[in-house]
């Protein structure tokens, strides 16, 4: 008897105008972790949606334990032992933990009165088996994201799932939490579950998975044993060409100090006495674990979180912005971390998304906006940022993550900032598009802008920045030169005040 648990055979799915999946096959072995990789738009999530019945496949077969299945919705999939831990946690935040776990299948007396005791007991049992330490009665919104994710995993396990799909499970986890997650995954693997692990993080994939399947443009490219792969091979498979260099050459000249931040502390977060300088034409990286206060630092400088004490000097003049408007006027710009939540205006077109921070410049007779001027600047931005779009009237949400990010860069450049703050500028962006963003950053620095770049991707910080400050527990734990430091040194500093 072979030990193939799930087999997806020659799945094809067509949307009007696009072949989203073209004859894709996938075999998941019992007791194994199978990584699914590919750039955004490669068809990974479409394939999963076909498995869960969110999309109906045009042709092909899905065999679970040798029997053909055709799930109509995720509930049916769940009941047959196929579960998914979503990347964007889909939870009822105002309800407690156990209500969330048993949602849709509450144990009851007489079919309608819920059995709280059983829910509590069963929840504890699952948590104990997975080594999760969370009170089943606590309201979901009071938990940090990492624990909410653990709850979501426990929920998947509670369905007695044979197949569990993890979609980018580590994007919001710290190093230790990732370790815990891997321990849970290992436990599930020992139990004989088949795990499908979708991630962009290659180090993790090489560490946890047994097999790796790479997809590109809706087609299956390769399935290999993880032991036979390394990072370069994976990248080659994913982008279909050899990326000889992941980072562009640097040609920026570092000039005099332009920004001085002194003893910055915030009222509502753990930001504590942060001081640093930024030079003209310099790319300053900010490293640290989740919760280290990196985003809070940028937001505080930008004036959108309350400052308890400290001063911010631009060209030796104190500016201390109290709102984003003041910050922009002083010459600061911030590309936010959550692009979809507070970066783009999804249903508005590129023109509006490009000009929104700079409307003052397009006024004619102090009242009317000149469409012509706006269009001119938008065209400039599309050209200068190499934005791939049919026209400036395209809704921004239809663009890829990388192109959306370029529109936002364009938006901020129009405000003619001296300091550009970037919060995770390449999150959720394809390997290929990342390179273009790096190029853009280096180019801006060589044009004399000061750049502060927060990132969780260590290689990116080392490859793009000149200098890196490492934050830990809301403080600065140290400062290193990108050219002569190592990931290990940064990690040690990042753990200093945890």
């Amino acid at each position, binding site marked *: 008897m072979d030990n193939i648990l799930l087999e997806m055979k020659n799945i094809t799915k067509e949307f009007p105008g696009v072949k989203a999946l073209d004859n894709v096959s996938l075999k998941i072995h019992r007791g194994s972790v199978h990584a699914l990789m590919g750039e955004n738009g490669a068809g990974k999530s479409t394939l999963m949606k076909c498995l869960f019945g969110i999309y109906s496949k045009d042709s092909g077969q899905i065999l679970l334990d040798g029997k053909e299945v055709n799930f109509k919705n995720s509930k049916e999939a769940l009941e047959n032992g196929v579960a998914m831990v979503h990347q964007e946690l889909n939870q*009822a935040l105002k309800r407690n933990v156990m209500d969330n776990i048993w949602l*849709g299948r509450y144990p009851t007396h007489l079919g309608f009165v819920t059995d709280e005791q059983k829910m509590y007991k069963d929840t504890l049992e699952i948590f104990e088996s997975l080594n999760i330490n969370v009170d089943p009665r606590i309201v979901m919104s009071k938990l940090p994201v990492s624990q909410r994710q653990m709850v979501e995993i426990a929920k998947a396990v509670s369905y007695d799932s044979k197949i569990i799909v993890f979609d980018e499970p580590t994007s919001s986890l710290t190093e230790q939490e990732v370790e815990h997650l891997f321990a849970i995954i290992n436990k599930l693997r020992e139990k004989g579950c088949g795990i499908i692990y979708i991630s962009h993080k290659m180090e993790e994939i090489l560490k946890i998975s047994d097999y790796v399947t790479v997809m590109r443009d809706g087609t299956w490219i390769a399935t290999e044993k993880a032991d036979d792969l390394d990072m370069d091979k994976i990248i080659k498979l994913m982008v279909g060409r050899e990326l000889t260099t992941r980072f562009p050459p640097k040609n920026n000249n570092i000039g005099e100090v332009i920004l001085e931040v002194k003893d910055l502390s915030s009222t509502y977060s753990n930001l504590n006495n942060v001081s640093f300088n930024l030079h003209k034409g310099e790319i300053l990286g900010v490293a640290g674990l989740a919760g280290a206060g990196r985003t809070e630092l940028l937001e505080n400088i930008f004036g959108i979180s*309350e400052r308890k004490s400290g001063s911010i000097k631009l060209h030796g003049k104190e500016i201390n912005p109290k709102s984003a408007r003041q910050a922009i006027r002083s010459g600061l710009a911030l590309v936010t971390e959550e692009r979809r939540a507070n970066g783009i205006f999804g249903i508005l077109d590129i023109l509006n998304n490009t000009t929104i921070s700079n409307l003052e410049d397009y006024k004619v007779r102090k009242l009317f906006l000149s469409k012509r001027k706006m269009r001119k600047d938008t065209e400039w931005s599309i050209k200068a940022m190499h934005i791939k779009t049919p026209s400036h009237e395209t809704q921004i949400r239809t663009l890829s993550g990388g192109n959306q990010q370029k529109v936002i860069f364009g938006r901020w450049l129009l405000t003619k900032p001296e300091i550009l703050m970037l919060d995770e500028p390449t999150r959720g962006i394809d390997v290929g598009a990342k390179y273009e963003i790096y190029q853009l950053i280096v180019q801006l620095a060589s044009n004399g802008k000061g750049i502060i770049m927060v990132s969780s991707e260590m290689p990116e910080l080392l490859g793009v920045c000149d200098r890196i400050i490492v934050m830990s527990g809301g403080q600065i734990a140290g400062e290193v030169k990108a050219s002569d430091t190592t990931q290990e040194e940064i990690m040690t500093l990042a753990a200093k005040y945890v």
Partner: protein
Amino acid sequence: MNERFNIKAPFAKYAGLSGADRKKAITEFFINNSLYIFMILAIIIIQIISPRFLSVPSIVNIISLSAANLPIALGIAGCIILTGTDLSAGRIVGLVACVSASLLQESGYANKMFPGLDTMPVYLVLLIALAIGGIVGLINGFCTAKFHLHPFIVTLSTQLVVYGILLMYLMNGNNNGQSISGLDISYSSLITGSILSIGTTAIPNFVWYSIAITAIMWFIWNKTKFGKNMFAVGSNPEAANVSGVNVTGTIIAVFTLAGIMYGVTGFIEAARIGSNSAATGLNYELDAIAACVIGGVSFVGGIGKIRGVIIGVVLLRIIFVGLTFLGIDANMQYVIKGLIILIACAIDMRKYLVRK
């Protein structure tokens, strides 16, 4: 698990704070409980100015007025928990009240709408009342869930439709649009009769019905699968959906249940008022929504407690009655009511703001 009931916990926390933080904690406490503090102060002041405010008849009056408004508020609360609202509630109450009254006029009454109709069994009319409310609620829920319309739009429309039907209904038979009175004794005694009196003040029977209904609603909200699903859908419909909750069914059921509650309110209201016209029920939904919001049922969705609804209804009633006791001009009363609702919502919203 007894932690939830540990009354000393907040004080222990307070003792651990220092200087400025203590001051902040006290301010927070006053802001978060300002409603209750305000109410206690208001009661004391009204009582000083007008000592009859806390007399037995006045208290029974406040209680029975609250009881009459409780079912409609409980119904609307469910809609608010789904991040919706219901503007049709008041008009449904009006329609149900007029239909109930017309079917239960005493025989031989001069202006009887249906002179040929014998007095119907009162419980049959109750069923009709619940059915009318339930059907309109079902339509509200169906349109909200199936057509993915905001309940504001749906109930704005049904409100007009129901009002039109009510006006046409009042033109029936001998009635010619007048108000309907002369209710049969079987009806009025069931609702406004009394089996218990405090001193000389009788407590009307509908107070007990209202209490029973509140208990049933508490059970539905807190102990049943349907109740939990309602909160889950209100909190995150997408999560509920992927977990296999029948979201459409839950929304329809919540609105239908709300409609049935309006039916109850209409049935009680007709007998309580005695003389019903097209104006019966006008703006009841606004008082009910205000009561819910004051009681912490949040438009954010997924948040609300039966206890809160009760407190909201009673507090609002104390304000209304209190303002009258103070002899404040009726026009001014609207201004005060409006401000109280606004402030209550602002305080409620504070709890959900993430401060940076």
